[in-house]
């Protein structure tokens, strides 16, 4: 099918289909009265089916706050968020609970040791979203867990172990399997490989690339431009709560326009030493400061 093909082709221009995640003019602020501080300022962000979209920025830039706003965990002060065609801004508490139970959006955190219950077997952790949703027989649940474990390349023998008994990479794959089991439309991955060693990082990134399908959209949040460049099609660059640049990831890497993106890419250490030198970075930083004052 031509449409899906063009959707899944990396770096392709996407046709004007309804996005899975459509955030328009999002504002988030924390604090009260005089102490109120805007954290997210007029952010537009879309994720289409079949896409892996990157969201990059330094610590405190608001990456995780955007993800939390999508899930109803951060207060949205203005703008609209549509998830899979459904407007979620303005949901009541019970609407949120129902929405989350359906598992349309799933969230994978940085540290699987903290996101998986240490006293629950890996297999039971993976099946938990299905048990919460209800309506499945034991056999159906077991079959689904095994199928999911195979998809994330997690050995079936590990399902009967506790999180403390398996490696970091295996734990992160288990956390991803748990996110996938509800067949979500949108998966938000918040620094999923930052806590992993080089060898396991490669395996998890390869596994994430294999998840690309016509029906799912992935939002990949990271401070690490390396992994973002490696797996995403499009990227949003967040700086102090604002999207300062967005576009095809490759273009951002080769021809970054905004000063912050140039500084970010020029500061990233590379093996070939192609990053900018100290004096060049200082110039960029001075320009950036002049811009934000």
């Amino acid at each position: 099918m031509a449409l899906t093909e063009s959707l899944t082709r990396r770096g392709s221009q996407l046709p004007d289909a309804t996005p899975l995640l459509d955030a328009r003019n999002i504002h988030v602020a924390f604090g009260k009265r005089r102490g109120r501080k805007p954290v997210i300022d007029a952010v537009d962000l879309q994720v289409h089916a079949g896409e892996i979209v990157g969201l990059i920025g330094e610590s405190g830039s608001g990456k995780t706050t955007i993800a939390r706003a999508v899930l109803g965990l951060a207060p949205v002060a203005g703008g609209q968020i549509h998830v899979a065609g459904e407007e979620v801004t303005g949901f009541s508490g019970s609407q949120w609970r129902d929405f989350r139970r359906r598992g349309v959006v799933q969230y994978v955190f940085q540290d699987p040791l903290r996101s998986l219950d240490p006293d629950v077997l890996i297999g039971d952790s993976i099946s938990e979203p299905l048990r919460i949703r209800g309506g499945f027989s034991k056999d159906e649940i077991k079959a689904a867990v095994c199928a999911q474990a195979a998809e994330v390349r997690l050995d079936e023998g590990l399902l009967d172990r506790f999180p403390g008994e398996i490696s970091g990479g295996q734990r992160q794959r288990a956390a991803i399997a748990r996110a996938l089991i509800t067949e979500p439309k949108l998966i938000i991955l918040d620094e999923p490989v930052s806590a992993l060693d080089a060898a396991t990082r490669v395996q998890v990134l390869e596994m994430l690339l294999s998840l690309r399908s016509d029906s799912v959209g992935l939002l990949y949040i990271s401070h690490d431009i390396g992994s973002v460049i490696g797996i995403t099609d499009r990227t949003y660059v967040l700086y102090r709560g604002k999207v300062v640049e967005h576009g095809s990831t490759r273009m951002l890497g080769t021809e970054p326009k905004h000063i912050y993106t140039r500084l970010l890419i020029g500061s990233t250490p590379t093996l070939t030493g192609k990053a900018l030198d100290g004096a060049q970075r200082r110039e960029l930083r001075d320009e950036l400061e002049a811009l934000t004052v």
Partner: protein
Amino acid sequence: MVDLAIAEEQIAVQVSDLRIRGTVPDTELVRGVSFTLPRGGTLGIVGESGSGKTLTCAAVLGILPKQVERSSGTVEIFGRDTANFGKQEWVDVRGNIISAVFQDPGSYLNPSIRLGRQINEVLRVKKGLSRKQAKQETLRLLSAVHLRDPELVYDQYVHELSGGMLQRVVIAAAIAPGPKILIADEATTALDVTVQAEVLDLLTELKEREGLSLVVVSHDLAVVAQICDEVLVMRSGAVVEHGSTTEVLHSPQDDYTRLLISEHERYGLDRIIDSERLAVA
């Protein structure tokens, strides 16, 4: 005071066949590490968590945790074997000759004492300066690590500064007594890349200006490649690769080193970056 003939000695640190054992349970954690850090040189140690990088550094600094001990091998600092150092000798050597900075700067500073006073204390204890001299020297050090407003930082507390600024304060404290060797153990890992680049610049500058010999420990080969002349790649307590940075990057001998390099080539910026397009025109 330890009498180290450091003026003539050209080798800052010499580690030979260092082995470290954990006593509970009885396991060998570091298996035969050897390296030489020449005066003014920069050595990088790369490896994943648990590979023994930090234990190797702890052995050089004489700060191995309890239940972990050196089982064989020698560590020499400017030609002196540290095996027989007593408590006083270590006190004399640490800070004055060898110093270290670690990953999380916030946890090495006291949250309830102003930052300036914490560096002051180092100077008064280690160098015997008066209050007034110590304050002047602290302000000089704070500006040497490129903190914009040394007077302001002097009176600030830990919670008032960002991670990158705190790491500069810790580096200032580490170089305060004028050490000849500095160990930076994952010193830039918790920082944003733009800040990481600044701290790496600072280390390079200090190396050149103060003649420091540097040991840079990182899980990221690219960080080490930025500033080191020589690289040691560790895995499961053993050295799997050792050579000049160019040699290791261009003709890696070990599979693990190849994997570290291919990760950057496949998922890193290396494929596409073009520095000419980044700089201010």
